């Protein structure tokens, strides 16, 4: 190639080439692995790191692997210092406690990269394998009380030499998992993807020369660091706090609400994330460093890594993570079970970061940053991992990521949320075709549709979730754990936007599916009949027999801005499409539908006025106007804060929500959701979950609508409500 004096250009071309290497690793993995978890759900990641180790390039699939790949590779790197390292060596890693894995089902293969004899760094491949043994299936064990019940644990172990998995280890793994064939083949696929990395990297360095390669790697990390720092520096210094509750009891006790908090400090161009949480518990929700770092980076990346900010090691430099004292749900130690660390406490960390960043973003001077606010989402899904004989004489592991792909996304200031956004950390997550499921597993699908009244109402509506139902058929039955992580505490929207419907699942027994099909009739929702015994939210072992129906509904994304300001045309379209029901439109948006199904504008104006009077208990003194950015309900400038709908001064910029210029209302979430015709699990235990609303006292515009646990105050110690009175189960 021709030489160029303009290193910045050559370095840019080199950066793209490194991104191609990570992408090609991903392509190799997708093509050689058959697992729908890889191919359709894209539940995997590939990346390249240098010797430090810092990321050189990262393929955007499971974003949270930014954390696990760093922590895991750091661990392998330490171990390698005292070993003879050779090309073709490979470590298997899946232990959240010792090596940063997201959960045990996410297995990594980490291999060194060489140029000639020189050890350059590491390539990392991770995928969710179909099974890892233990009491759970597919790596999720809600029933486990400690980490040893959760399945195989690989702190970094060098099981690969010369690019080949050792026969002894292969036999050991095969003897300990439910579906040895696919699991071993997936390990081979991960080796193949690492091979791709070595091959492509060598070619690249042949082209650039080793010194230039190293120089460009450093330059590109520096450039990404610089951009992220400039965005952080544009946020006002200060501490922004957020709180959330993880729901758990898979152990037949009372459902507990596990408090976790984030204090995010913006200090110049550095960001400090300080987490705290209640003591760790004996259920699989606890999180460890890889998940916490990965989930923090997930929210940061989707909100701030826009435009010209290539994701690499430079992005970690301004980030400082403090997980507090060991032994809490955010910083668990053995024997705490951790097999859903990323999907329970971890995914709540994503929402905490979203929330804290939103607070900082609305205070930014730079308009492009204010336009980055977004709602929280139901960052989780009704999931199951069922196992049983199938219609082909073999056995099926049914871990459908469909529900994860089908969670509604956060509303954006310029658009409604994506209907099939999925788990925030899983970019590109897809769902399998119904025809694929039916061809492989003993299931017959009854429907798959978008659920009404799902996305959080707002000026911009949150994305809707999906509902699907299948009957077990062609086999005696399947069984395994079922769990759902956000059912009772729906995530809130932002800037006056409302929370979305939560996710749930229903089991219907003794149904008439066979009888209907026997007489040539489709088991539609109207015809379907059966009994629906109450189910817990997390179940260790659910047995589905032939004819039983499993119905799951994914939750939605939070809304942005006061729903009373949503355009009537948009609501009309939502009504016509069936995304919202007339009852929901009336209660949440103040929209009245006349008998012909059209929006009645006059009646709507009256109803919206009535809702505003109701909110503040008097006639509003001013009209409400559209805010500059939907979701930015407060305007901050020079030590003052004003309502974005009417410009009324709201008083003390730091404590405006407690001040006299706003009207505060609290309602039990269950009641509010019943009024809005939305779904949330009716929690049977105290404390209840409440909806805390703040309205502008002048125009009655919705400024802040949050879901919090009854009795919670910001100055009480973590876990003062919802946990302390029943923590005897904690380890």
């Amino acid at each position, binding site marked *: 190639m021709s030489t160029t004096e303009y290193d910045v250009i050559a370095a840019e071309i080199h950066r793209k080439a490194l991104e191609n290497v990570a992408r090609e690793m991903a392509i190799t993995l997708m093509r050689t692995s058959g697992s729908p978890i890889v191919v359709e759900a894209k539940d995997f990641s590939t990346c390249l790191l240098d010797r430090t180790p810092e990321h050189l390039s990262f393929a955007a699939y499971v974003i949270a692997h930014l954390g696990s790949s760093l922590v895991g590779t750091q661990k392998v790197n330490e171990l390698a210092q005292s070993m003879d390292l050779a090309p073709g060596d490979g470590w298997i890693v899946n232990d959240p406690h010792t090596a940063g894995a997201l959960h045990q089902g996410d297995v990594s293969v980490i291999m060194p990269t060489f140029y000639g004899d020189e050890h350059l760094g590491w390539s990392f491949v991770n995928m969710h394998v179909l099974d890892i043994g233990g009491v759970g299936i597919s790596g999720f064990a809600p029933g486990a009380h400690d980490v040893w019940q959760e399945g195989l644990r690989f702190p970094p172990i060098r099981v690969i030499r010369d690019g080949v998995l050792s026969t002894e280890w292969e036999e050991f793994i095969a003897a300990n998992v439910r579906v040895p064939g696919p699991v071993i083949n997936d390990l081979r696929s991960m080796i193949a993807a690492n091979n791709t990395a070595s091959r492509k990297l060598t070619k690249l360095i042949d082209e650039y020369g080793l010194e230039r390669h190293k120089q460009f790697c450093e330059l590109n990390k520096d450039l990404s660091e610089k951009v992220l720092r400039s965005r952080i520096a544009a946020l006002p210094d200060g501490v922004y706090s957020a709180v959330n509750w993880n729901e758990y009891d898979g152990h037949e006790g009372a459902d507990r609400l596990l408090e976790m908090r984030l204090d995010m400090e913006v200090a110049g161009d550095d960001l400090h994330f300080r987490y705290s949480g209640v003591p760790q518990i004996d259920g699989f929700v606890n999180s460890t460093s890889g998940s916490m770092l990965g989930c923090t980076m997930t929210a940061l990346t989707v909100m701030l890594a826009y435009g010209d900010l290539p994701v690499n090691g430079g992005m970690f430099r301004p980030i400082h993570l403090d997980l507090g004292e060991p032994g809490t749900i955010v910083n668990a130690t053995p024997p705490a079970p951790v097999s859903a660390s990323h999907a329970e406490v971890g995914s709540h960390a994503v929402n905490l970061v979203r929330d804290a960043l939103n607070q900082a973003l609305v205070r930014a001077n730079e308009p492009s940053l204010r336009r980055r606010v977004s709602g929280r989402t139901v960052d989780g899904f009704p999931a199951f991992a069922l196992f049983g004989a199938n219609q082909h004489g073999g056995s099926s592991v049914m871990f459908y990521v469909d529900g994860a792909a089908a969670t509604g996304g956060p509303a954006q200031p310029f658009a409604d949320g994506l209907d099939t956004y999925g788990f925030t950390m899983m970019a590109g997550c897809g769902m399998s075709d119904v*025809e694929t499921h039916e061809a492989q597993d003993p299931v017959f699908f009854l429907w798959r549709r978008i659920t009404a009244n799902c996305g959080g109402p707002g000026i911009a509506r949150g994305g809707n979730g999906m509902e699907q139902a299948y009957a077990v058929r062609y086999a005696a039955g399947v069984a395994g754990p079922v769990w759902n992580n956000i059912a009772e505490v729906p995530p809130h929207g932002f800037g006056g936007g409302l929370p979305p419907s939560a996710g749930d699942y229903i089991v219907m027994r003794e149904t008439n599916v066979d009888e209907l099909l026997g007489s040539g009739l489709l088991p539609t929702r109207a015809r379907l009949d059966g009994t629906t015994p109450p189910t817990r939210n997390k179940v260790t072992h659910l047995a589905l027999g032939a004819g039983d129906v499993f119905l799951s509904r994914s939750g939605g994304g939070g809304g942005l801005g006061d729903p009373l300001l949503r355009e009537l045309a948009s609501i009309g379209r939502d009504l016509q499409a069936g995304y919202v029901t007339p009852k929901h439109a009336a209660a949440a948006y103040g929209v009245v539908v006349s008998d012909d199904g059209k929006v009645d504008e006059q009646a709507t104006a009256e109803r919206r006025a009535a809702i505003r009077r109701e909110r503040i208990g008097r006639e509003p003194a001013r009209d409400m106007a559209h805010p500059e950015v939907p979701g930015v309900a407060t305007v901050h400038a020079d030590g003052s804060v004003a309502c974005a709908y009417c410009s009324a001064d709201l008083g003390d910029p730091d404590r405006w929500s407690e001040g006299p210029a706003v009207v505060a209302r609290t309602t039990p979430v269950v009641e509010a959701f019943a009024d809005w015709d939305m779904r949330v699990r009716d929690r049977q235990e105290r404390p209840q979950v409440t909806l805390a609303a703040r309205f502008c006292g002048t125009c009655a515009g919705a400024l802040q609508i949050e879901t919090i646990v009854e009795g919670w105050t910001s100055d009480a110690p973590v876990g003062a409500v919802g946990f302390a009175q029943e923590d005897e189960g904690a380890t």
Partner: protein
Amino acid sequence: MAVAGLDAFIGVDVGGTHTDVAVVAGDRVVRGKALTTYDDFSRGVLGAVEVAAGELDISLAELLGRTKLFVNATTVVTNTITELRGSRVGVLVTHGFSDTFRLAGGARRTEFDDQMQVNIPELVARTSIAEIEERIDYSGAVLVPIDAEQVRSETRRLVEEEGIEALAICFLTSYLNGENELAAERIVKESFPDLFVTTSHSVFPVSGENRRWTTAVLNSFVQDRAEVYLTSLNTKLREAGLAGGLVFFQGLGGGISLDKAKAYPLALLGSGPAAGAIGANELARRMGHENVLLGDMGGTSFDTGIITGNEIVVEKNLDLGPFKTGVNVVDVVSVGAGGGSIAWVSERGVPQVGPQSAGSTPGPAALGNGGTEPTVTDAMVTMGIIDPDRYLNGRVQLQPDLAREALDHALGSRFGWDADEAAAAVHDLVVANMANAVREVSIEKGHDPREFLFLAYGGTLPMFACQIAERLDIATVVIPQNSSVFCGLGLLASDFVLRNDQSVGWDLSNPGDADRVNAITDAMVTAARDEMTAEGFGADSIEIVRSGDFRFQGQAFELSLVLPDRPFSGEEDAAELSRVFRDLYEKTYGEGTAWEGVPATLVTYSVTAVGRQDRPELGAGTAAAVSPRTVEPTAQRSVYLPGTRTRAQISVYDERQFEPGVGITGPAIIDAHDTTIFVPAGTTAARDAFMNFILKREGDQ
């Protein structure tokens, strides 16, 4: 079908801006060009053909009266989808699954930025999707037959209340059993015999409802605009006196008849780029080359593709933006790198070029139409490679001062570069972007570019072709005599092609299942032959090509193998196919990666029927040996050389000086009719017997 006794062939490519025509009449090849006329495409087509007729000194009617075969490529179908301006479509879908199009198999994009995650455009209004009670199970058994009355009333509602113009029938598992879809179609036709209907199993009988149904909906979506286009062109051409056959060009690189195109208009997707690839292949074949990388650079984009062994690579199951389809098209990669691509500085302070383009208004700064952002063309003017007095054959006077000013403002002042250095930076970036695209179609698919020649066409590419080749170690660049006529000639070199893919699902560890598979494939072949016969092809001129997609059981991606043109033998074929597939797999993914203890499965079977069409004899040129000689430059020009980063006086030649055999050595510039060829130092350029320029690096000869 072509009519005997006639001697002219016409290829027409209706592009976004221009309609290009190539006519071969006897031993003459002439071209015609006209602006594409969007209100009635046939006007531009006839206009362009008339220009070509003028070149032959005959009338339009006379030319059409002598024409044996008229082949047409069009952007109508592609544009209908990209602009989302298709018919109002209604859908009959299995009850419970009307949201499949919205869910789209998970529409989240593999991007970090949340604000990239937006809902996919709705091709069909939700109120125009009607759920029908019917069901076929995983084995193909009909569990619930359709309810005729429901189909009738729902269709009536769609037509009368929703005002649909076309219908798609999309039922679950129809890829195994099309019975319910066909029954519904019959009932629809009873009430609405003229309503255009696509059944999903007929366009793509392959497992996976999202892709199959989307394909069916798209076919109905493009139908109306395609129909108007096809009918109008046919009528106007016949009125104007077209005597011979009219064939439409498919994106997979072959022709189909008017009737077939009307029934399956989606096949016309991507037909323009496919014509370019076929043209490149035809030229390579005549020159005796088997392996070609092709590149086409215009004002806004660079398209590239690969030809190995004179075979064009066809990509299966095209993803068209957010829409997953079952359409097969010639594999062409497109990047936003053209003469109008804008240079800018990103937030990290890194210079970038494209994908934004200045378009034709305001266009490059040097045009003086108010453009202030520097483009690739501005960089070339600044470096001296483009002669400002001869741009577009002297039709437009360029202003180098404005180009320099724009470069200085955007890049130079920021990085401390003078105008030449800034221009060279733009040059390097656009070359890198194009080289990356060529890499994507070659190296990343396992082909070594050093074994290929680079065929470069389009008005802008000859300035960059050698630099791209150098980055990829390609020794030879070919610049054909007349770039813009290229696609038209490609059309004339094409065959008539029908292709069908069908899920078969043969587990090779069960050789006894071969009989079932053979019954399916025999039916496919018989149908293909019948269809070709109906198109007027005799048994001798029909070629059947069978191929299959294989994977290890439980995988989701397949590798394709060409299969023998006969039924499977069972035991023997199963063993042989397993072995061949395993070899191909390890060759593709690396030794030791084949799945152990897992049988291979033949997932999809494809039958391609090729009807050999009459085609013009394109002259072998003056293929007699040409004696090498050189000529003197017409002028010297000061050019900033991208390789050495120095300014030098270099020789300038006129294209017309180059008879076959004439060659020169770079650094040099050859000003041609509609382009500029840059010959770097150490590279020779010579005209061959076909009047192509052959550029070779010294030391590689």
